[in-house]
């Protein structure tokens, strides 16, 4: 059991490292994600012309940008491998769960980099003074975990579909909605400094755990 776990950890680390090297050399999906987020935030900010915006709307805008930027980047997680013909080789040499978690960690790293890049730009362009920095960081972290798990499974599901581009966000949205609703509310609390409802954080943690577990179970059937 311990040996199997160690072997899977080695495989996961190897897959994350490989994806990182290939991603750095190809850059395409990561650049698409960053450019979408930057373009969306900049154009929304310019169109409002500095007018004050309700923190509820600001929180929703932030998560909508993260959702669609993530969709642009992570939809090709498995598809790039399938198109290149490397997915059958990877499946032959690595354990299925190691592939799943290797990809999931890769997506998590990409989304973390995305939020580190876009959130400060968002706060500056929309002139948001964050009252609860820790709450905002925790909310974003929990949101990114849920989005990574759901995004990885959805990417695996849509690999063999013929209309991946449209299908990915359609399938991803309902799965991640229970994460986004509390995330938007908590982000609003972080912007306004209002006393946050800790049960919303618990909901996010629970739903993250459910998503990661369900993804792990369902992946074996793909």
């Amino acid at each position, binding site marked *: 059991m311990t040996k199997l776990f160690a072997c899977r950890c*080695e495989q996961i680390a*190897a897959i994350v490292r490989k994806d990182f090297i*290939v991603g750095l050399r190809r850059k395409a999906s990561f650049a698409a994600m960053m450019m979408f987020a930057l373009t969306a935030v900049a154009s929304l900010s310019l169109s409002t012309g500095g007018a004050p915006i309700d923190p509820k709307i600001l929180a929703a805008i932030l998560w909508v940008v993260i959702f669609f930027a993530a969709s642009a980047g992570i939809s090709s997680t498995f598809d790039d491998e399938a198109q*290149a*013909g490397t997915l*059958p*080789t990877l499946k*032959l*040499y690595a354990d299925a769960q*190691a592939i799943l978690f290797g990809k999931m960690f890769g997506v998590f790293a990409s989304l973390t980099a995305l939020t580190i890049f876009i959130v400060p730009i968002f706060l500056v362009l929309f002139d948001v003074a964050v009252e609860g920095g820790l709450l905002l960081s925790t909310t974003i972290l929990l949101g990114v975990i849920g989005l990574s798990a759901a995004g990885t499974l959805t990417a695996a599901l849509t690999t063999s579909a013929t209309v991946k581009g449209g299908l990915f966000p359609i399938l991803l949205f309902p799965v991640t909605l229970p994460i986004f609703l509390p995330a938007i509310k908590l982000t609003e609390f972080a912007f306004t400094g209002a006393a946050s409802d800790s049960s919303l954080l618990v909901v996010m943690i629970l739903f993250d755990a459910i998503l990661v577990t369900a993804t792990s179970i369902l992946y074996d059937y793909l």
Partner: protein
Amino acid sequence: MTEKIFFDDVSLSFGQRAIFKNVTLELRGGQIIGVTGANGSGKSTFLKLAGKIIRPDSGAVELPAEKKIAAVSPEMKIYDGLTAEENLKFFARLRGKILTAEKIFELGNRVGLNMKNFGSTRAENFSTGMLQRLKFAILLSVDADIWLLDEPTANLDDDGRKKIFAEIQAAKSDKIILLATNDNAEVEICDEIICLPL
């Protein structure tokens, strides 16, 4: 090794076309088993079934417990964006092996790929023959118990073929080796032949 792969009443269809119908057979280790047949007879599919890469519609394929599989096949690509050395290290790592520079050099020599010259070249810059050699080096690096070889010497020159044939012959005593081919030279190294009807 006397272990075997067992096909138990295996059937598989693609659409309306039955590729295999109620196939029951044993594939014993310690020999090279050639799988031949006309184009479209299901040679590659047979190998995929044997390696449990695909599942039959009915029946079962039984493999020796905890045996590791490796394959060289035109359908199984390696990473274009990685160098030859990175590809070797990556696949070996997936099987829990860490390759030293000496080992990489030795693996390259065994398949006729000079890793000192080409180790840091990305696979996307390799010719098809060099890619085939690299795929075989990966197969050698992972110490698998079952080899699935689909036209393993396609695109290779005479020197490459000799080296690959020598490796397959040397490895057969403790492995189950399945070789799908229509190439006479490849058929000649096989100890047993399964000819698939169209």
